[in-house]
């Protein structure tokens, strides 16, 4: 396979990776904000869902009570913005780096809860999912490497395209 073809495949894989990662973040935000069954899509019902998510955040026992609610209300919005940002591909190095840090933060929080023997809901994609070895493996084996791969890919491809463009810009000796 030529270097050009490899570069093309790399770009396609990067697009697929960032779309999947962006989709995961958007879905995570949606799952936290969506109204509970039987409730309409209103600001009040979204607030109820976010308050419910706040209970999940509180159960991690990592934040002071005053910080729980602001964090729980800000996180889904952050996830939504980050997901859309990843999908657009604009400033991908920064967005992918942020997504890796976010996944790392989630993984650390879950691992900490598991280590402390807390049997709580993960809260990752809405309520109900219990923290356990399976959830940790999913997060650690699937999401974290994906975010890392997109970040590394974004940096590598950017560096490569810079090298190509500087080559094209190089002055040519006329005959």
């Amino acid at each position, binding site marked *: 396979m030529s270097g050009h073809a490899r570069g093309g495949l790399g770009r396609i894989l990067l697009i697929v990776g960032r779309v999947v990662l*962006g989709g995961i973040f958007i*879905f995570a935000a949606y799952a936290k904000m969506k109204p509970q*069954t*039987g409730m309409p899509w209103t600001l009040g019902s979204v607030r109820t869902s976010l*308050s419910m998510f706040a209970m999940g955040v509180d159960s991690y026992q990592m934040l002071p009570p005053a910080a729980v609610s602001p964090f729980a209300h800000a996180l889904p919005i952050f996830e939504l913005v980050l997901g*859309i940002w990843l999908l657009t591909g604009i400033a991908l190095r920064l967005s992918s780096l942020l997504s890796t840090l976010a996944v790392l933060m989630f993984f650390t929080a879950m691992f900490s809860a598991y280590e402390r023997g807390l049997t709580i809901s993960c809260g990752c994609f*809405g309520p109900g999912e*219990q923290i356990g070895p399976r959830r940790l493996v999913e997060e650690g084996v699937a999401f974290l490497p994906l975010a890392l791969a997109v970040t590394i890919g974004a940096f590598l491809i950017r560096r490569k395209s810079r090298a190509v463009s500087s080559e094209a810009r190089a002055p040519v000796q*006329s005959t």
Partner: protein
Amino acid sequence: MLVDTRATGTAAYSRGNSRYNKRAHLDISVGEADLKRRLRTSAGEKARHARARTLGAAPAFLAVFILAFAFASTAGPQTAPLHVKAAAEPSAPAKAYGSPNAPITMEVFSDYECPSCRNLFEQTLRPLIGSYVADGKVYLIHRDFPLPMHKYGYEAARWLNASARAGQFQAVEATLYDNQNTWAEDGNIAKFVSGAMSPEAFKRVETLMRGCTDPATAGQQGQGCVVDPYIELDRALGNKIPVQATPTFVITYKGQHLPAGSGFVSWPILKQFFDSLLGQ
């Protein structure tokens, strides 16, 4: 002569329509071979841009697909509130606080030997009972879910159910949590139960507890312990959720039961959630 090939090429491309015109214009500064290379590069760039546009549209389509899938998954099956099913059991003792007509019902599955359950009771449920339950906003139900890992958890649940049959649920629940560290050491639960009620009431409880004192028969039906079916009824309800840990709580609002939560939750956060529900 040194020339910026990109700048010259772009200018020439914009000025002339024919390939020869472009070439004539550029011939001054660069050679023909170089010109051909640049024309090829220009065509290649156009193709790359076209590919990029196509690939750039893909995320948008995928985003729409993901959102459509997410919206489609909103409509889930609605389950009847658990407390309605439990209420259908006529002989079950009342293990609850407040009015059953309250708009919010909170059912807590707990084990009396579980430290998180004690923390939830002491730090969250006590203020809840004193305010929202007293005001008729919340109906709080206790559900037994003794875990096998706790040596005296099942026995404590037996004492509680016997006390509930004698109308002493609230006092005994409080004393079991208040003295959890002590009775969890030696299993002497009767000492604290007797201290929480009158001697007459304790006699009734002791009568109900006949045949229940053997920890080996915990959870075994037909062993002569009259309160075990109540515990098993709660456990069966818990297994339907399913309860995977204690404490687990199920909140029902106007007949709709919300997804179960587990672990400790502080009172200000729970209160905020109830306020958002009541503000609907």
